[in-house]
């Protein structure tokens, strides 16, 4: 059977090549929003890199919390406060197990990945990085892993060094190794590049940094929803990710930090919950992780994140990675066939992200026409302008997949792109 026949078969049968133990139809049924229509067409939601959808299990958990469990945490002696605290702290333990952190207190709740990176900039960077010190970032970073370090540079007079990428969108590891010197104080690098989908060999990159005694921050926002992340196996020092990209709510994220490092860091924000005692003369900070969690947190969002972790564990990260691999393979094959379409980011190891340009058509026009066909994609620079500069383009169209996407949705994307080419041809 030829590849195209095989693809057609899979398309028609909705997943003949689904991994064993993974039921696509059942999984899709968990996501009510996927049954919706846009402009009279079935929704093909291919913007998961920007934000993913929530399964009914997470929505139900949020409703249950708001209906019958809400109170402030960590302070009341009453029933509801204890219920809310147990659920919120229980979610932290779920996250700890999910990423295989050694201890619960290494898992800090944040507002999201951006907040997590900023916490490290303030808590670690401002305390331990000074004038003339160097921070290594990569050319593939999201703005949220560039701008905080530039703010530190402007404040402290430290220096940013950039790991370049090749034409496929892969980081050049020999150049990376050559960037280290005795002023290098931190490496801040993404696990999966949001604009291109490149999966960086971060375990190897972390080992390189550690040989120079340099800690590593990993932006895992695009990795955690798609592949098994084991922070102890990676041996990363800081790992950041967001709830809303992993089928949980917005407004919640995680910063993992090795306990020994966390003990040395200064607090990010002052306020309630992060203190043990306060007088006008002296304040004693709370123990980690609470020292870094000032104020009343988004309790419901934290509990929702725990429910999202349960959901992902139930499906299995290995199944997710396997099915998304099939989606990427099929989408790459189909989009490549469209005349002139240029795929940006062709790394050997890629997450299910397909960034491309259509010759002669601005990505925003492509996005508007695809929207008419019910297809949701991201168009623009994806908050990664240095990546766009590297490839000499102002913007791309980006289809980013999740485990609930189907071959039929990819066909819908391709049909939309054919219409774009016809309209602007």
């Amino acid at each position, binding site marked *: 059977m030829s590849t195209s026949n095989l693809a057609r078969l899979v398309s028609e049968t909705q997943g003949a090549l689904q991994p064993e133990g993974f039921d696509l139809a059942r999984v899709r049924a968990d996501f009510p929003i996927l049954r919706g229509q846009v402009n009279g067409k079935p929704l093909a939601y291919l913007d998961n890199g920007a934000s993913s959808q929530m399964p009914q299990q997470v929505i139900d958990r949020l409703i249950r919390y708001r209906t019958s469990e809400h109170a402030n945490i960590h302070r009341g002696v009453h029933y509801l406060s204890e219920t809310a605290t147990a659920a919120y702290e229980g979610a932290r333990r779920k996250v700890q197990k999910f990423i295989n952190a050694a201890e619960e207190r290494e898992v800090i709740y944040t507002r999201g990945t951006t907040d997590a990176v900023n916490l490290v900039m303030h808590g670690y960077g401002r305390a331990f990085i000074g004038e003339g010190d160097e921070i290594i970032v990569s050319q593939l970073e999201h703005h949220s892993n560039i701008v905080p370090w530039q703010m530190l540079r402007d404040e402290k007079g430290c220096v940013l060094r950039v790991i370049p990428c090749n034409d496929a969108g892969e980081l050049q590891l020999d150049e990376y190794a050559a960037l280290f010197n005795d002023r290098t104080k931190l490496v801040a690098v993404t696990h999966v590049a949001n604009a291109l989908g490149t999966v960086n060999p971060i375990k190897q990159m972390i080992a390189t940094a550690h040989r120079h005694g340099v800690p590593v921050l990993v932006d895992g926002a695009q990795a955690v929803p798609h592949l098994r992340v084991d922070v102890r196996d990676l041996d990363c020092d800081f790992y950041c990710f967001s709830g809303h990209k992993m089928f949980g709510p917005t407004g919640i994220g995680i910063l993992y930090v090795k306990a020994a490092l966390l003990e040395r860091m200064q607090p990010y924000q002052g306020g309630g919950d992060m203190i043990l005692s306060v007088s006008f003369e002296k304040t004693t900070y709370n123990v980690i992780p609470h020292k870094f969690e000032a104020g009343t947190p988004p309790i419901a969002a934290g509990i929702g994140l725990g429910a999202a972790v349960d959901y992902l564990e139930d499906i299995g990260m290995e199944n997710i990675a396997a099915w998304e691999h099939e989606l990427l393979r099929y989408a790459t094959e189909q989009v490549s066939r469209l005349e002139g379409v240029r795929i940006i980011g062709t790394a050997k190891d890629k997450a299910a992200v397909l960034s491309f340009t259509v010759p002669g058509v601005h990505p*925003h*026009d492509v996005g508007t026409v695809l929207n*008419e066909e019910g297809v949701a994609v991201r168009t623009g*620079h994806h908050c990664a302008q240095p990546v766009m500069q590297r490839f000499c383009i102002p*913007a791309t169209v980006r289809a980013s997949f999740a485990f609930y996407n189907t071959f039929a949705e990819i066909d819908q994307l391709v049909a939309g792109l054919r219409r774009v080419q016809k309209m*602007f041809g």
Partner: protein
Amino acid sequence: MDSKQLYQEVILDHNKKPRNWGRLADPSHRAEGVNPLCGDHIWITLKVDGSNIAELAFEGESCAICKASASMMTTNVKGKSVEQAERMVQDFRDMATGRLDTAQQPHQLGRLTVFAGVKDLPSRVKCAILPWHTLHAAFHNEQSASTEGDADPMGLPAVKLADE
């Protein structure tokens, strides 16, 4: 909003074959327009003879909506007075932001009403308005126009549309 409505033949045609494309060698007024969020970037040059727009031209890199809007703007304001053109700038801006219903209210826009549908696509309003902002800037001898900050037709902080 049906984008078939937005991308009408006339818009696709002006995108493909923009009219008055280029730069005047000896302009009396000029301005550069930038939409930093999507990378739309145009230059407008014009010659004002007395109070009339004798000649104008544009060029740049942009999406189809911006290019067609600029092209149709040049054909529609050429030969008109600066005052008439300024009224069109105001009408176009009001139409694109939904403040002017061209089907019900009087206006100066003529065939430019093909852009009325853009009001239902907030992320594309700025694409359509940029050429008009740039023309307005040229009349006032401002060297550049933007769709951001004080000039933001949506009245929203620029970063709102750029964030992921």
